[in-house]
C-alpha cells in the first residue's frame, strides 16, 4: 500500500517538476524583440541543433533557455577529467559517498561557470534584436539565464532524489519530445509537396526502423561470463547472472555530437581562406558536398574509438577482476585477460560505430531521396537519448512495481 502510493507520488512529483521546467522556457528574458529574433533564427541550423536539447528555448530566449545543457556538459567534462586527473579518480573511486559528493559539488560549480559563459555569449549574440543594448542588459540577462539554468539543475537533482528516473536525462527527454510535433509539421504541412500521405507513411516506417536500430545500438551488450573465486568452489555450473556487460555503443551520443561539431569546421574554414583549390577541397566536406557523408561516417567511427578508449580501459577491468578475485572462464588473468578484452572491445566498437552512423545517415539520405526538409530533429542523437532514457526510467519503475509485489506476498 505504502509502496504503491509511493510510486504514484514519485511520478506525480516528477511530472510536476517537468511542467515547471517547461513553463520557464516561455517566460521571456526582458529587453529583447522576440518577434524579430524568432523570425531571424528560424532558419539557423546551429540554433535548431541547440534547440533539440534545450526544448525550443533558443527561439524565444526564455529564462530557462539554457536548460540542463550546462549541467550535462559539465558532467561530461567531469567524466573525462576523472579519467585524466588521478586525484579526481581517487575521489570518485576510493572515498565513497563523501568523495562522490565532492565530485557532484565540483560538477555544479563547473555548470555554473559554463552557464555564465554561455549566457554571456548569448547576450552578446542577440545584440541586433535588443531594444536598448548596454552593460546593464548583459548583466541582467546573464543573471536571468544563469539563475534559470541553476534552477533547472536543482529541479533535475530533485527529480533524481525524490522522483523517478534520472532528472537530467528526463529533462533532455522532455525537451526532445516537445520539439517533435514542430518537426513533423514543418516536414509535411508547411511545404506544399505532393503525395503527402504516401510520404507520411514512408516516414512512419522509416521512423520505426530507426527506433529499432537505435534500441539495438543502445541496448546491445556483449555479456562476458565471469566467475568469482568465492563462487568457484560452490558449484561447477556457471551462474547465468554472473557476467560483465560490455555495451555495443560505449560512447552513447558523444561520438555523434563530436562528429557533427567537427563537421561544422570545413564550412567555417571556407570563410577564412581565399585559395580556390583549398576552397574546392573544403566544399567537398561541406553539407551537400560529395564527401560530406563519408567524412561524417569516418569521424563517428573515430570518435567512437576515442570515447571508448577513455571510458573503458581493459587494464582497469582486468585489475578490478583481480581485486575481486574474479576471472573470465578459460582466460588467464593478467595480460591474457587484457588482450582478450581489448579484442572484444575493438570489435564491439566497430560494430557499434557502424550502426551508429547508419542511424545518423538515414535522415540525410531520406532528405535527399524524398525531398523532405528538417528531418534532422529526428536525428540519431535525439533517438539515442529518447530510447536510453525511456529504458532506464522503465527499469526504475519496474523496481517499484516489484517491491509492491513483495508487499502483497507478505500479507
Amino acid at each position, binding site marked *: 500500500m505504502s509502496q504503491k502510493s509511493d510510486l504514484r507520488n514519485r511520478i506525480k512529483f516528477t511530472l510536476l517538476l517537468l511542467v515547471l521546467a517547461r513553463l520557464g522556457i516561455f517566460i521571456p528574458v526582458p529587453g529583447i524583440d522576440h518577434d524579430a529574433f524568432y523570425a531571424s533564427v528560424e532558419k539557423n541550423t546551429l540554433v535548431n541543433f541547440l534547440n533539440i536539447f534545450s526544448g525550443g528555448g533558443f527561439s524565444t530566449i526564455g529564462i530557462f533557455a539554457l536548460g540542463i545543457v550546462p549541467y550535462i556538459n559539465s558532467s561530461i567534462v567531469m567524466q573525462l577529467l576523472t579519467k585524466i586527473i588521478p586525484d579526481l579518480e581517487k575521489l570518485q573511486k*576510493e*572515498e*565513497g*559517498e*563523501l568523495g562522490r559528493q565532492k565530485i557532484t559539488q565540483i560538477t555544479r560549480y563547473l555548470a555554473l561557470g559554463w552557464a555564465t559563459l554561455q549566457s554571456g555569449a548569448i547576450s552578446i549574440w542577440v545584440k541586433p534584436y535588443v531594444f536598448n543594448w548596454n552593460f546593464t542588459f548583459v548583466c541582467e540577462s546573464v543573471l536571468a539565464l544563469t539563475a534559470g539554468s541553476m534552477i533547472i539543475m536543482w529541479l533535475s537533482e530533485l527529480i533524481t532524489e525524490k522522483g523517478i528516473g534520472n532528472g537530467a536525462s528526463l529533462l533532455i527527454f522532455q525537451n526532445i519530445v516537445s520539439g517533435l510535433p514542430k518537426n513533423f509539421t514543418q516536414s509535411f504541412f508547411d511545404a506544399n509537396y505532393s503525395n503527402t500521405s504516401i510520404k507520411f507513411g514512408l516516414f512512419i516506417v522509416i521512423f520505426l526502423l530507426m527506433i529499432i536500430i537505435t534500441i539495438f545500438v543502445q541496448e546491445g*551488450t556483449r555479456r562476458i561470463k*565471469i*566467475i*568469482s*573465486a*568465492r*563462487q*568457484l*568452489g*560452490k558449484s*561447477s555450473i*556457471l*551462474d547465468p*547472472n*554472473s*557476467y*560483465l*556487460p*560490455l*555495451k555495443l555503443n560505449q560512447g*552513447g551520443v558523444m561520438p555523434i555530437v563530436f562528429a557533427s561539431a567537427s563537421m561544422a569546421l570545413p564550412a567555417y574554414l571556407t570563410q577564412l581562406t581565399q585559395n580556390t583549390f583549398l576552397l574546392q577541397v573544403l566544399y567537398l566536406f561541406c553539407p551537400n558536398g560529395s564527401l560530406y557523408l563519408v567524412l561524417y561516417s569516418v569521424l563517428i567511427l573515430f570518435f567512437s574509438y576515442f570515447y571508448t578508449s577513455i571510458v*573503458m580501459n581493459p587494464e582497469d*577491468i582486468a*585489475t578490478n577482476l*583481480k*581485486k*575481486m*578475485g*574474479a*576471472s573470465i*572462464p*578459460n582466460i*588467464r*588473468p*593478467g*595480460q591474457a585477460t587484457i588482450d582478450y578484452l581489448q579484442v572484444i572491445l575493438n570489435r564491439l566498437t566497430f560494430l557499434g560505430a557502424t550502426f551508429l552512423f547508419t542511424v545518423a545517415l538515414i535522415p540525410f539520405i531520406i532528405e535527399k531521396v524524398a525531398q523532405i526538409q528538417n528531418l534532422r530533429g529526428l536525428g540519431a542523437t535525439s533517438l539515442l537519448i529518447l530510447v536510453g532514457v525511456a529504458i*532506464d526510467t522503465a*527499469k*526504475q519503475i*519496474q*523496481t517499484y512495481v*516489484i*517491491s509492491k*509485489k*513483495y*508487499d502483497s*506476498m*507478505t*500479507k
Partner: protein
Amino acid sequence: MFNLLFSSSNQRRINSYAATVKKINSLEQKIGNLSDEELFTKTSYFKDELKKGVTLDYILPEAFSVVREAGCRVLGLRVFDVQIIGAIILHQGKIAEMKTGEGKTLVATLAGYLNALSGKGVHIVTVNDYLARRDSEWVGQIHKFLGLSVGLIQQDLSKAERKLAYQCDVTYVTNSELGFDYLKDNMVLSMSEIVQNKFAFCIIDEVDSILIDEARTPLIISGPSEAPVEKYTQTNLLSNILFKDVHYEVDEKARNIILTDKGTLFCEDHLSIDNLYDLENPWVHYILNAIKAKELFIKDVHYIIRDNQVVIVDEFTGRIMSGRRWSDGLHQAIEAKEQVPIQQENQTYASITYQNFFLLYPKLSGMTGTAKTEESELDKIYNLEVICVPTHRPLRRKEFSDLVYSNEYRKWEAIADECYDMYRAGRPTLVGTTSVEKSELLSKLLTEYKIPHSLLNAKPENVEKESDIIAQAGRQSSVTIATNMAGRGTDIILGGNPSYIAKSILIDLLIKKISVQNNLKLQQLSLKTQYCINQILKSLEDDLIYANLSVLELEKKISIACEQVAISRNLEIQLRKAYQLIFQEYENIFSQEKKYVAQAGGLHVIGTERHESRRIDNQLRGRAGRQGDPGSSRFFLSIEDNLLRIFGGNKIADLMQALNVDDDTPMESTLLSKSLEAAQKKVEAYFYDTRKQVFEYDQVLNSQRQAIYAERRRILESGYPRDCILQYAESTIDDIVNFCLTSKENNEKFVNLNTKIKYLLNATDTFFISKDLYSDSSELKKWITEQVRINYDLREAYLEQIKPGLIRQLEKYYLLQQIDNAWKDHLQKMGALRDAIGWRSYGQQDPLVEYKNEAFNLFIEMITHVKHTVVYAILRSRLMVKND
C-alpha cells in the same frame, strides 16, 4: 554559530519535557506515602486504566513516580530528573544520549515498566550476556517488586526456558540471542517450538554499538556443507613461501589480496596444475584465503585460540564472539594457519542484518553515551532521532590534546612513562588498547618498569576476573590495561566499588568455592570480619545443600541479598548479613581512598590509538570523570598507527617531516589534531558507505525474507494445509499447460502435455486427455484440476485409513521442508548474484536496479520450484507405513 543553533534545538526539546518532570516530582510525596502493598497494586491499577482506553502518555507521570519510589525502596537509588527525561525520550521511540555513569540502566526500567503495562512484552537489549544478567538481576528487582515478570535470555538456555523468558513482561536479552532466536523461530517445524512473541517495543542499550558497529556483519545461521579440507592445509603451506609485493599485493583499506601474474604462475607451478581458476578444480579461492589469513588476520588481534579453536574477537567491544565463524572458507584457512583442527565448511540456512531485524519492531528506542556523531545515519536508516540529555552534575574531565610520535616504539615508551608518573602520583590509570596483542605488549613493558597492574582482555583467564578488575580499577595507584572491553558498560568508581567487591567475594565463596583463608580480597579485612563470615558460611552450609540451587539461581539469591528489598528466607538474611559486613569494611577503606584519589586528579584514561570511529574513542574517554568526578584523558599516537597509515594519506607524514622533529619529541599541534580528525571522519564515511550499501542490498532480501516467513508462518499456523497444497497444484497445472501449449508442433503439444499430466497424477498408461479439451485452455485446466482433486481425495482416504491425521502431518512436513530447502538454495544464489552484480556498472547499468530486477526473477523461480516440488512429492510419493 551553527553549533549554537544546533544545541538550542536540542535544548528546546529538553525544555519541552520540563512540565512532565515537574508533574512527576510533585507526585513524589504522595507516592512516597504508599505502603509496599499499595505500590504493588498500582501496576494492576494502571493495567485496568489502559484497558479502559487511557493512553500510555496519560499515565506516564504517575507510572514513572511509582517506579522512582520502587527504585528507592528496592535498590536505594533515587531516579534523577535527567534520568526521567531520558526515560521519556525512550518512551517516545527516540535515542537518548547520556554520558557514562548517568545510570542508563535505571532509565530503561522506567520506560520498560510503562510500556510493559500494555501487556505486550518489552525487550531490553544489551551488548553481552554479562550485562543482560547483571541488569536483570539488579534493576529487574524493581519490576518484580512492582509485580511484573522479568525474563533473562542467556546463551546456554534451552528452548523451553527461552520461551518462558520471552513471555515475561520485560525480557533482558543480548542483540545476537534476540536475532538468532528470530531466525530459528522461522525454521521450526511446529508452532510449539516458537519462542518469541510478536515484537512490540525494544530498548537498545549501547544503541550505536548494535545499530552501527555491528550492522556491517549480518547474523547467519549455517549448517555444514561438503567441501574438501585438504586444500586448506596445502594452500597454507603454499602461502608461507609466497612473498608480499612479489607474488601478491595487499590492499589494507579494502582488506583484500591481489595475486600478481608472477604469483599465479608460481602457485600453478607449485601445485602442478594448469589453471588456478579451473572450473572443475578451483584453487584460487583457497590461495587467496590462505594469504588473507597470513597477512590480514593476526592472532590475538582479530582472533584468539581457545580450546584448540579459532575464536573471533569483536574489534569494537574487544569481546570474543564464540560460535561465530568467518564465512567463505576464511575461518578454515585461519584454522589451517594455526594448525588446529579444520572444521567443515558452512552453508547459510538463514541470515538477517541488524538493520532489518530491528526495523521489525513497531517501536524502537535506544540509549548510549555516543550517538550524536552518527545522528544522520540513525535518522536515515532507522528513523530514530537523537536527543542529548544533560548530565546530572557538570562534567569535570580534562581532555589533553593528542601526543603524536614518529614511531610506535617511542609511543609505547611514553605511555609506560605516563603510567609510571600516574602510579607515583597515586592516581588510578586506565589504558585502552586496541587488541589483545598490544595489551600484552604494554603489560610486559610495565612489568619491566616494575609497575603493578592488572590486565583485562578477551583471553579466558582474564575475562574471569573482569568484574574484580573493574571494581578495583578506581583504587589508588592502580593501573589497568584493557582492550575495548573496558569501553561500554563499565563503571569505574574512584577509590573502588565496595558493593561490587562484596558481591564478588560472596560469589567466590559460594559459587567458586574458594575458602575464606584462600580469598585474597577477604584477607585484607580485619580478623573479626573474617571470623564472622566463616561463622555465617558454616550456618548456611545445610541450607545451601538442601536448596541444591543452580549457579544462576544462586547468583540471583546473592543479587537480592546485596540490595535492600525486604526478605524473609534464612538463606537470604544470612547472605545479606555477610554482605553488609564486607561492604561496611570495604566502604571505609574505599571512601578514604576516594578522597585521596579525587584530590590527586581522579581517573586518568590513556588512549593508545585512534579507533575507526570517534565514538569508540569517546567511549574510552568517557570512563573518566563520571558523575562530575575529576578525571583526565590523553591519546598517545604514532605515525605508524594503522589508522594513520591506511587512511591518513601522505599529508600527516609530510607535516611531520616539514616540522622536522627528532624521534623523542612528541608533536602536539592543533593542525595535526585537525588532520587526524579529518582522517577519522574519512574512515567513518567509508564505513557508513559500506553499511548503507549492505542495507540497500539487504532490503531486497528482506522483502523476500518477509514474504517467505509469512508464507511459512501461514502454513505452520494452519490446521488444514490441504488448501495450500491444492492451491499450489492449481498454479503448477497452469504452468504445465501454459508451457505445453506454447510449443510449436501441434501434435507434440498434446503428447507432451499428456505425459506431463500423467506423470503428475502418477497415472497408468491408459490415462488420456480427450482432444476436445485442447481448444479451450481454461476448460482444460479446470478438467486437470478436477483430476488432481480426485486423485488427492483418494490418496487422502487411503492414508487416513492407515493412520488418522497422517495426511495433514505429511502435508505440513512436505511444505515446510521444501520451502526451507528452496530458501537455503535461494540464499546461495542471491549471494552469487550479489557478487556478480557489481560488474553491471560496466554496461552503464545501475547495479542496485539490476539487482532488484534479477533478484525478483530468482525469487519467482524459487516459488515456482517450491510449488512444483511440493505437488509432485505429495502426489507421487509411495508411502510405506510400518504397522506397529
